[in-house]
């Protein structure tokens, strides 16, 4: 069965502190992994995907197939990073984005 687990409902850090939002997944094939973000009063939007291997807004995420993890990291958190973050997976190479989402982690960055 496909499953995405985000163990932390809330992560609270101070500005400038490192951030790691955890994501573990369960999938029998080769998935594509994503992080989506929802800022206050805004719609859900893509932050990054493992295929792109990009750094977006200072965030990076590395797919670890051995640990079935896709943790999101940022070395120095900013107040504007406060948002709801969802990890998600989709079967690779189907073309369809039939995403399986985790329950999300709310990141709160305090000044």
């Amino acid at each position, binding site marked *: 069965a496909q499953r995405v687990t985000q163990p932390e409902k809330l992560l609270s850090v101070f500005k400038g502190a490192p951030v790691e939002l955890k994501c573990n997944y369960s999938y029998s094939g080769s998935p594509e992994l994503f992080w*989506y973000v929802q800022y206050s009063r805004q719609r859900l939007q893509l932050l990054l995907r493992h295929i792109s291997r990009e750094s977006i807004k200072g965030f990076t995420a590395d797919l670890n197939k051995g640990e079935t993890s896709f943790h999101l990291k940022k070395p120095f958190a900013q107040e504007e990073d406060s948002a709801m973050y969802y990890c998600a997976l989709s079967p690779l190479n189907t073309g369809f*984005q039939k*995403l399986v989402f985790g329950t999300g982690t709310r990141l709160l960055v305090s000044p």
Partner: protein
Amino acid sequence: DAMVIQNPRYQVTQFGKPVTLSCSQTLNHNVMYWYQQKSSQAPKLLFHYYDKDFNNEADTPDNFQSRRPNTSFCFLDIRSPGLGDAAMYLCATSIIGSGANVLTFGAGSRLTVL
């Protein structure tokens, strides 16, 4: 510059009274999706359309139906809403074949069932 528009943003209905939520897009994307997100839960895929081809998820209740009359519009019909159907309903689109295969979401429609 909203590209996926959902209406209404807030819908209140009575138990058992049918409701329709709409989604329109200006992106000319060939795939449209409906997700259900209950409070503090993960968004859950209900079904998707690839052009006019409807694809239902195995565990989507029969109470939920969808229509896609053209590329731009997709509707979610809840035939007899129950209290357990109160949720945020998210419409999303994607395009197959462009290489940029990611979801673009609407702002959502929040359904309350009295």
